[in-house]
């Protein structure tokens, strides 16, 4: 069907057509930017539900929360950039429905917007605690949007004790910030180790040791059975019976793709908006990028929540809308800042990979992941050189000899020259 190059949707949209982008986060903004960069001359409408200009999320839970970065500096582009690039920005505008037959969006303000191509960049949302646990108590926060952090910020300065539910990146980053701010911090994680879904045990153990050395208390392998308090949250009772007092609770229990609009329009949802390797949904006029998109690739489904994926997948979709017909070749990379640790990750590891630890000269070290002797990922822990060498090897599909990786006497630069 839509792979047919003669299908009208396969022609690149001309100067009299409209591309609508739903979602004004990193992916939506990048899609708009790259459509213009790839020569799209028609009308470009970027629709955001939040009232804010597109902004960066990574600093929200760090410098912005601490008041060290003003709101103005979160903006991904200066305000006049949109007009200069003839991008019509519709902020504070929800999209209620997609009429795929008419190729038109129904907006929450009652208006409609006809499109020739549509990009869904609806992002992801924070998973919420079950109502039975949270009971709607004030003092419980999630970390995703600017509004989330503005709410948290008010409570943060008045609170001495933070309970974090969830030992993933969001939870650990906020734990580090709060501890650095002088708060007493407890972290509860239902799995028996930190970062269970997203990093190896080696990396998780190093992160845990760092946090413990800074006074963060961990409760692993147990969940929260109830939150305590009547007017507002005062603590939690854990599955193992431990009671923890807290002034505020942050739930960092994962993200979920925002798929409601696509699902309501009858598009396939499989752990996100299902798209082919080019980023197109089953509807040849509708594409998806960023956190919400699950790409069907030869090696399986790929959905990532990261800045790098938001930029790269939006770039791909923009090129393909303009007729490039290229498959997504993801080059996953992530970073996380916790205390004085900068964790930089290239590639995607998974349970069962062989892990080789390379000890650096100083405090830095790196973890190298091999699957059937093929390098698949590198974690640099205060080891930017290792990270970049790994990233380059991954990009070139070159796998170093694990024995060389392990040996600190073998210079990193020579790893890059190892035969495949």
């Amino acid at each position, binding site marked *: 069907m839509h792979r047919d190059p003669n299908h009208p949707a396969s022609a690149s949209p001309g100067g009299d057509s409209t591309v609508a982008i739903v979602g004004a986060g990193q992916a939506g903004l990048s899609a708009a930017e790259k459509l213009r960069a790839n020569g799209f001359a028609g009308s470009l409408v970027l629709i955001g539900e939040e009232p804010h200009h597109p902004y*960066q999320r*990574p*600093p929200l839970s760090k410098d912005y929360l601490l008041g060290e970065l003003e709101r103005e*500096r979160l903006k*991904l*582009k*200066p305000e006049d*950039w949109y007009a*200069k690039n003839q991008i019509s920005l519709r902020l504070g505008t929800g999209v209620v429905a997609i009429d795929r037959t008419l190729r038109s969006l129904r907006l929450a303000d009652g208006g409609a917007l006809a499109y020739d191509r549509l990009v869904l960049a609806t992002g992801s949302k924070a998973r919420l605690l079950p109502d039975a646990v949270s009971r709607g108590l004030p003092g419980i926060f999630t970390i995703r949007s600017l509004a989330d952090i503005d709410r948290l910020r008010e409570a943060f300065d008045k609170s001495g004790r933070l309970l974090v539910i969830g030992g993933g990146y969001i939870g650990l980053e906020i734990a580090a910030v709060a501890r650095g701010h002088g708060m007493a911090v407890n972290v509860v994680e239902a799995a028996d180790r930190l970062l269970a879904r997203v990093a190896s045990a080696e990396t998780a153990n190093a992160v845990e040791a760092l946090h413990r050395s800074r006074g963060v208390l961990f409760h692993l392998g147990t969940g929260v059975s109830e939150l305590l308090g009547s007017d507002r949250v005062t603590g939690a009772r854990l599955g193992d019976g431990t009671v923890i007092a807290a002034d505020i609770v942050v739930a960092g229990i994962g993200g979920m793709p925002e798929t409601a609009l696509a699902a309501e329009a009858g598009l396939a949802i499989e752990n996100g908006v299902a798209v082919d390797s080019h980023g197109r949904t089953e509807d040849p006029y509708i594409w998806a990028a960023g956190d919400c998109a699950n790409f069907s690739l030869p090696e399986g489904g790929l959905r990532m929540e990261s*800045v*790098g994926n938001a*930029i790269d997948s939006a770039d791909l979709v923009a090129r393909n809308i303009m007729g490039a017909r290229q498959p997504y070749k993801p080059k996953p*990379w992530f*970073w996380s*800042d916790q205390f004085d640790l*900068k964790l*930089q990750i290239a590639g995607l590891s998974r349970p069962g990979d062989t892990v080789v630890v390379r000890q650096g000269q*100083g405090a830095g070290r790196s973890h190298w992941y091999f699957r059937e002797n093929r390098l698949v990922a590198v974690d640099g822990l*205060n080891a*930017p*050189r290792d990270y*970049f*060498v790994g990233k*380059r090897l991954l990009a070139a599909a070159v796998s170093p000899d694990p024995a060389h990786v392990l040996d600190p006497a073998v210079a990193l630069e020579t790893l890059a020259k190892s035969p495949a």
Partner: protein
Amino acid sequence: MPTIRFLLAGGEELAVEALNGRSLMETALENSVPGIVAECNGSAACATCHVVLPDQIMSALGPISEHENDMLDFAEAPREAGSRLSCQIKVSDILDNVAVRIPSA
């Protein structure tokens, strides 16, 4: 407000007004300076905001961190004597009228 003179990879010059206290990278992004990508938006995680500064400014800015030093070896354009990550430089009056070159990859 210092004026920063960005020398673009194509040879043109783009002079912009900068705010003290902002980073040099933010100043470049606010003015859509080509070649400053800054994928990590200033977290010193990506090495895509590489600039080259004149020698006298290098010494005036003081020593660079070990982390930045390591990252610079892996920027897309080859490292030069005046190479810095612009996200790690705070704008101040000593940058007034200084030529900040964007190296070509």
